[in-house]
């Protein structure tokens, strides 16, 4: 009797973990088989394979019909780097990076420090500054095409007011890119400002109070306390600025489409204008591969070098 009770108890104690383990291992596979494949299949077929195929197609001269047969080796890559428009696109992408780091981020930080302080209407200003970021790039480009228009736009109106000849910035190959850089800052500074506001809010106030007690001036506090503590936010902000600038396309199309005479081409508009519209699948794929290499090496090395500890 006693034995059997003991036996039953010990049997139960053995059965319980066994059953739990079995139910775990039994229920693990159905979930994996049901939950993983949709994402895996879609991602593989529409992201990874196309990227691999871009590498493959880039060795061919192919117009997209039938199968690629005309193998031309590295010729597409040679053509890209010999193309003046592509060189201009690289310079322009570099300019956009430069402006987002040297103009946009200081501007965003300056505004964030004001909007984060105790003033009336701070919330209202944050909303206004963030508004351009939610608008589509295409819409922003279209609006600024109007702003820059010499005949009917705001810049034309200002020139008219001063009795000057109306300028046509977007049609001037020496000025068009700078006009576009202005739109880039207009569109994206609000996003970076929000990052900085979040960063400022994470700073421990007692550190600033301690600096006050030590007699630090406003600027000293900013340079010696706030800025170092914002390090990770600055690095993140630069990262988004760089990655975003490599992708710039939507905004350029309504503004200039890459012209006049290729002066506002970026890597993606170059890919579109020279690969897609001419159905040069091989050449366009090669541009895609170059862009891919830029994006991935930049993202990897930036994260490794600057964001190791974040």
């Amino acid at each position, binding site marked *: 009797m006693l034995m059997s009770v003991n036996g039953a108890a010990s049997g139960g104690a053995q059965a319980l973990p066994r059953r739990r383990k079995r*139910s775990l291992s039994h229920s693990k596979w159905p979930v994996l088989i049901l939950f993983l494949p949709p994402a895996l299949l879609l991602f593989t077929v529409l992201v990874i394979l196309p990227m691999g195929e871009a590498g493959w*197609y880039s060795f061919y001269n192919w117009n997209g019909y039938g199968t690629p047969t005309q193998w031309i080796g590295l010729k597409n890559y040679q053509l890209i780097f010999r193309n003046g428009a592509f060189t201009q696109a690289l310079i322009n992408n570099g300019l956009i990076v430069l402006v987002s780091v040297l103009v946009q981020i200081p501007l965003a930080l300056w505004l964030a420090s004001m909007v984060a302080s105790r003033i009336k209407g701070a919330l209202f200003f944050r*909303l206004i*500054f963030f508004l351009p970021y939610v608008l589509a790039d295409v*819409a922003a480009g279209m*609006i600024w095409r109007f702003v820059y228009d010499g005949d009917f736009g705001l810049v034309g109106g200002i020139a008219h007011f001063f009795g000057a000849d109306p300028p046509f910035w977007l049609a001037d190959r020496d000025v068009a890119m700078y006009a576009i850089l202005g739109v880039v800052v207009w569109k994206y500074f609000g996003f970076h400002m929000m990052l900085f506001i979040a960063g400022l809010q994470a700073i421990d106030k007692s550190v600033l109070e301690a600096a006050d007690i030590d007699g630090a001036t406003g600027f000293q506090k900013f340079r010696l306390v706030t800025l170092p503590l914002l390090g990770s936010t600055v690095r993140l902000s630069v990262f988004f600025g760089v990655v975003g600038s490599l*992708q710039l396309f939507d905004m350029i199309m309504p503004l200039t489409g890459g012209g006049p005479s290729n002066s506002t081409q970026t890597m993606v508009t170059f890919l579109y204008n020279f690969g897609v519209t001419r159905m040069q699948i091989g050449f366009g794929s090669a541009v895609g591969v170059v862009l891919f290499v830029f994006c991935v090496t930049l993202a990897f090395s930036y994260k490794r070098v600057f964001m190791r500890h974040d």
Partner: protein
Amino acid sequence: MTDIATSAPIDAASAPTSGQRLRTGTQIYIYVSLILVAGIVIVPLLSTALGGFKTLGELRGNPFGLPSDWQWSNYTDIILSKRYWLQMSNSLIIAMLTVFLTLAFGAMAAFCFAHIRFFGSSYLLNYFLIGLMFPAATAILPLYIRIRDLGLIDTYWGVVLPQVAFGMGMSIMLFRNYFRNLPQELFDAAFVDGCGYMRFFWHITLPLSRPIIATVGIISFVSSWNNYIVPLIMLNSESRYPWPLGIMIYRGEFSTEWQLVLAFITLTILPTIIAFFLAQKHIIAGLTAGAVKS
């Protein structure tokens, strides 16, 4: 998720000791700067909206001020036209399908990565995260060939599926981080009670995940609503164009009549602006916190 827009204002570098009010001089400096920048943001938008009420002749002489004679017909003609509503509904259908699939597939896959140990799981997760590093534009030509071979050119799915695929990395990343931060005790307790993975996902994980569902949903909705390059490549018929393509076509057709283009731009960005002011807290938090965490 940090609630950026609504959390209490803090003392920035320029502010004196907390609790103390700013000096009047500093305040004036701050307000003048803020109003100046706000003006640069607002004036282009406002003059676009007002320009839509003008005649072309008036636009030439007076692009800034109020219209002397309000041309309501510029706007009403567009609102009463079929193409405006067609473009809006195309955009909405594409965005809704994109959001639904990005949420469903992303949450399901992320659940596996957060809770189940299986062979190669960390490699598979990194595989998905590669997708965060390059834009759809890099592979757009082979993607076009693939979509063409699948017979999906000029269909909504031809736009939706690539958008979902390119959003997968972001979705899985955000969901996984969130799921892993849910209390582990819930999971242990559920298993002791004999609850399987599926029921746990449906009845415990998802109801607790509203904030992250909102974040991922907002990010994928906004990026689909604003997307230009994918529909540009995948769609041919104007009847399926979402509004960013429609706006370009409209501008091409009425290139000599800026006032109509301005009215059209205003009406196409109006839904975004209204949605932004209605749900600003969620949209700002979603777009920035989402970016920070991915």
